């Protein structure tokens, strides 16, 4: 079967969730990648290590306008004869995959967390992480949007051939006036390690210790909803049922009670560590490791101990 994977490379780099989507595609069939923007051929050829045989790149398209990307991907589907198109269920995938599904009359599975099973059904996240569903696609063509960090990625070897790919994309109806880069380089939705703080940390001035711990770990920072609502932390850090849903390898929660809406967004994390003064905090029921104690005391100690560990290894 022929598979096409669209990845966003506007940053000039290939993000981990993009490699993951490519490798996922290569396990379904022979995989071509399509992307756009100013990214070097050398960088793109590395996708061979994740199972891509060919990469089509449209350098002229430098925005993430979903109308134009949809046209680009549709043209690539036509030229490769792909039957399955894979996206990462990231911010670009969320906008483009539904459009492409309509254009190609190809059923869309979004939020996939596994490869199609023997019946061709795809397991997805539903009820904000509280359950899984198995989706059957009735159309012959399929679009699958893969949840970041769901199947993981293991580099192999090989190089992909890179080809320029032109398509008639029409004029964009959207004008980009300003781009604001998020501070810190580890993006929360794709982060493998996350340190998160709740209302128990009392105020924004106390986030230094959270950032210090995140720094020694190489982790992204996150927070509970009230913390973002009061403005202690930016909205994009809010995790939970009405925020970002994440599935890192490690989630450290300090001063968060573990309300059901918070858990919904984080309980797919592989290992959860909870630090809370209240032994009755509901979060301990969802935790793998717990410390009943004061975050102001425990977090700096944890940072020191991890520094020691890193120094030894």
């Amino acid at each position, binding site marked *: 079967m022929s598979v096409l994977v669209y990845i966003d490379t506007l940053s000039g780099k290939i993000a981990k969730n993009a490699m993951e989507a490519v490798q996922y595609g290569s396990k379904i069939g022979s995989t071509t990648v399509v992307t756009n923007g100013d990214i070097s051929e050398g960088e793109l050829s590395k996708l061979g290590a994740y199972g891509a045989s060919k990469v089509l790149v449209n350098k002229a398209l430098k925005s993430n306008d979903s109308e134009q990307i949809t046209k680009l991907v549709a043209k690539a589907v036509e030229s490769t004869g792909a039957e399955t198109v894979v996206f990462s269920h990231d911010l670009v995938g969320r906008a483009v995959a539904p459009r492409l599904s309509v254009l190609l009359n190809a059923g869309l599975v979004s939020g996939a967390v596994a490869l199609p099973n023997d019946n061709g059904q795809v397991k997805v996240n539903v009820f904000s992480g509280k359950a899984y569903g198995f989706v059957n696609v009735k159309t012959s063509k399929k679009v699958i949007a893969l949840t970041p960090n769901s199947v993981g990625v293991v580099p192999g070897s090989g190089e992909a051939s890179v080809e320029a790919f032109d398509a008639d994309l029409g004029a964009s109806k959207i004008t980009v006036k300003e781009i604001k880069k998020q501070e810190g380089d580890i*993006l929360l939705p794709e982060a493998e390690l996350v340190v998160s703080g709740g209302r128990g940390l009392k105020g924004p001035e106390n986030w230094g210790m959270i950032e210090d711990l995140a720094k020694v770990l190489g982790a992204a920072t996150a927070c509970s909803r009230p913390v973002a609502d009061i403005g202690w932390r930016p909205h994009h850090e809010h995790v939970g049922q009405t925020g970002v849903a994440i599935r890192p390898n490690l989630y450290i929660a300090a001063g968060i009670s573990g309300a059901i809406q918070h858990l919904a967004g984080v309980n797919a994390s592989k290992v959860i560590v909870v630090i809370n003064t209240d032994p009755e905090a509901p979060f301990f029921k969802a935790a793998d490791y717990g410390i009943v104690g004061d975050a102001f005391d425990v977090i700096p100690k944890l940072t020191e101990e991890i520094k020691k560990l890193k120094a030894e290894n």
Partner: protein
Amino acid sequence: MKLLVCISKAPDTTSKIDFKDNNTEFNEAGVQFIVNPYDEWYALVRALELKEANGGSVTTITVGTAEDDSIIRKALAIGADNAVRVDAKAEDAYFTAFQIAEYAKANGFDMVLTGKETINFNGSQIGGMIAQLLDQPFVSLATKLEMSGNTATIDQEIVGGSEIISLETPFVLSAAKGMAEQRIPNMRGIMAARTKPLEVIPAAACDAMTSFETFELPEAKSACKYVDADNVAELVSLLHNEAKII
């Protein structure tokens, strides 16, 4: 400005999720339903603010059965002018988007607003599909929206940050956190909602492209291992040697 806001029913966020009929259907017994938070807090409230500032109208649309009428009345109580319900079970995202697009085509709106996703299916599918069906631009995950005449200026979440974009109506937008503040309906709104028009229209012919076959619950976690607050080194050792994640 004529605004159309998509409203979906969702289980209350505290609901216990389980399934019936051999795990093929969500078990609604004892579940309280709410307006999907993204639809209500962000899409609907921002649409109402725009109407209050610039005039126009706010219509809500829901694809669903008569059981959805109570959450539709809630949207009317918050301030929508009128509501439409396409009388059909929402088979899948495509079926739902198709119904909404048909209504939007027939009635002409300046903007169609959806929430970022529903909290039951988390698909983020409807908005983009409607945009494609209407052949309009789609702004996904908008966190701020200002109008000046027919020109919209929007803050949009993108990979690694955000961008400010501008475009002309008509377009489709999905609303995320930051757009507006939740509004609690007052008594007058609730009274008025009872008599506001709720039009029920038949569904247009459309085949769903996907279906949910079965559901399952995540495996239960094993019990939490407690570490003494005075022995943080042990936690680090467990994370390193036992869990092997640092």
